[in-house]
């Protein structure tokens, strides 16, 4: 094999900065492709081998919206301003589920893929990343359902809704950061999945998913929006239905949280990564 020899003999002189950068870029492309393959396959497998197929991605938020809509809208008479409560709730749930499901899938993904870890080394961070992106694909389907509901109820939507795209970026970055943290810790402590379930439940009720933060007292409102997911959810809903940001300052704090979570999560993940093969 002439090529392999060439590569070997080339190696010493080619260790320049440019060459190293090229190598890094090449491997990054490779890992991105691996993430994409894993995420797409994850979604496919999830729905191909289940009875209702892709409908689960749609059915799940629908049923949740239905039951919460009944309890909070009909029984507790929650107010949602000018928008029908079901649409309001479905919006909150759609965006919240991207975070919650991403975190849930990512937490178990390293331990659940033990057989994949045994082969050749690849950056393990690929696994939780792929898990989050798989849930992002789910999110796009449930966003379609949301769109159908918005059209059905003739809810007015503003062009500012396009700003949701960069906002989703912040949300995904934040999700990834938290996902790395829990994925790594789950390798060390296997009941992390239970803990994540519990944390997510509390977190959901503490975030403006089923209610609007703006309808609370200003102290409570500040408290709710300090929570990065609160700030993001509020902003996403505002952009969609109000046409403007009601609380732009909290978005900055959410962005800061997102960066902090990503850096911190990655740091923990990198720290724990060498132990993966040993404790699993």
């Amino acid at each position, binding site marked *: *094999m002439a090529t*392999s*020899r060439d*590569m*070997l*003999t080339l*190696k010493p002189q080619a260790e320049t900065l440019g060459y190293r950068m090229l190598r890094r870029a090449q*491997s990054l492309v*490779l890992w991105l*492709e*691996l993430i994409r*393959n*894993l995420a797409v*396959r994850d979604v496919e*497998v999830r729905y191909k*081998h289940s009875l209702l197929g892709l409908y689960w991605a749609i059915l799940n938020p629908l049923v949740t919206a239905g039951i919460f809509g009944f309890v909070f809208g009909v029984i507790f008479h929650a107010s949602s301003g000018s928008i029908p409560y079901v649409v309001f709730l479905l919006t909150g749930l759609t965006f919240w589920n991207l975070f919650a499901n991403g975190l849930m899938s990512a937490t178990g993904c390293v331990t659940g*893929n033990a*057989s*994949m*870890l*045994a*082969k*050749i*080394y*690849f950056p393990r961070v690929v696994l939780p990343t792929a898990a989050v992106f798989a849930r992002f694909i789910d999110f796009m389907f449930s966003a379609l359902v949301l769109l159908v509901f918005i059209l059905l109820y003739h809810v007015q939507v503003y062009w500012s809704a396009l700003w949701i795209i960069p906002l989703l970026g912040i949300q995904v970055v934040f999700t990834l950061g938290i996902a790395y943290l829990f994925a790594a810790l789950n390798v*060390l*402590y*296997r*009941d*992390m999945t239970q*803990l994540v379930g519990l944390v997510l439940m509390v977190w959901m009720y503490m975030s403006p998913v089923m209610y609007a933060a703006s309808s609370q007292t200003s102290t409570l409102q500040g408290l709710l929006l300090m929570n990065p997911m609160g700030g993001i959810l509020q902003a996403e809903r505002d952009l969609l239905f109000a046409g403007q940001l009601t609380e732009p300052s909290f978005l900055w704090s959410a962005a800061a949280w997102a960066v902090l979570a990503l850096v911190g999560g990655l740091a923990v993940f990198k720290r724990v990564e*060498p132990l*993966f*093969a*040993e*404790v699993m």
Partner: protein
Amino acid sequence: MAAHVVAEHVSKRFQLRRDRSDSVGHLLLQMLPRRSRPKPEPFWALQDVSFEIKQGRSLGIIGNNGSGKSTLLKLLTRTMQPTEGRIEMSGRMSALIELGAGFHPDFTGRENIVLNASILGIRRRDIERSMDEIIDFAEIRPFIDVPVKYYSSGMNARLGFSVAVHVQPQLLIVDEVLAVGDEAFQQKCMDRIFAMKRSGTSIILVSHDLGSIERLMDDGLWIDGGVVRGRGVPRDVVYSYRSFLGETTARDGAAPNAKETSQVSFAVDAVAIRGLNRHEQSIAPGDPASIHVRLTNATSQTVRGYVGISIRRPDGLEVAEISGLRDQQLVAMTPGTTHVEVLTSELRLASGQYEVDVTIFDDQGRRLANARSAGAFRVQGQERTSGVILVPHEWRRS
């Protein structure tokens, strides 16, 4: 040529911590003050292991269960980090470590090929091109679109092997997984491994099949209790390992400390064994046959010497020796290439696979070059006979 894999003073320590909590609940419990805590017990799975593999060479690793072989492989594939020392390697690595390693049980065979390839560093479009070849080699075409979790262990190993060898690695690491395949597939794998070796791939093979380590590898490494106990010519390493196991096979001919002479002036280029009865590759028991040896003399003068040919069974058993020294067949090796042919009217070997070693001696009987497994051939009869030789016979009532 540049060293391909270098391991220097590699050690791996595991903490057998009895008190390590593996759940958050346990962790919280531990925070309660307690009088005494069991101390962590260090366990050295590997200690001060060093070796290097040059491009295109092969290393066979042997040792008892629990000796640290698998830990070493995990360090080589970088799924674990050494506690001390360093491991360096260049080029693309491919490995077949344990059954189903790198496979996602829910994905189909085809999806797993792509996935596995991308873990090994191959883009999707590149692997799509060799997809058919991979599927055919693994012989699982009817099942390729079935999730891997329904595969038998044999199918799993075949697919794993097929992917591992089709990504054009520069270093191939193979653990015992091949043992689950049937004999035909094992043979196919071995053939493939050696085809790759010939084209420049370095090989690391871990096996309990001492015969194949001995006959197929360039170097041997024996690990016991995490420590290197033997290193060098596989025959010697296997010999000392066998002696250690207390099952030393009686072989008077092979001195355990026979050193490989590093003379490069003489080389055995090719050995061809042909049956003279038919044109096929295989030879029937009792056929006339010829052994053709091509030698190179890289020096500038003609050297007179002898050629020794030894026929072995793959497990290392020496079946026959044809010694030019004993027969006093002095060969004048002119600078350049020399051809020597040995003819036999009846090759009385039973059906099976055989290998040929060739040694060149000078006229004083000093060894100039030695080529292990320089050639191989298969004797194939109509009926399957056991044993090694064919005994001409007739039956009589007495």
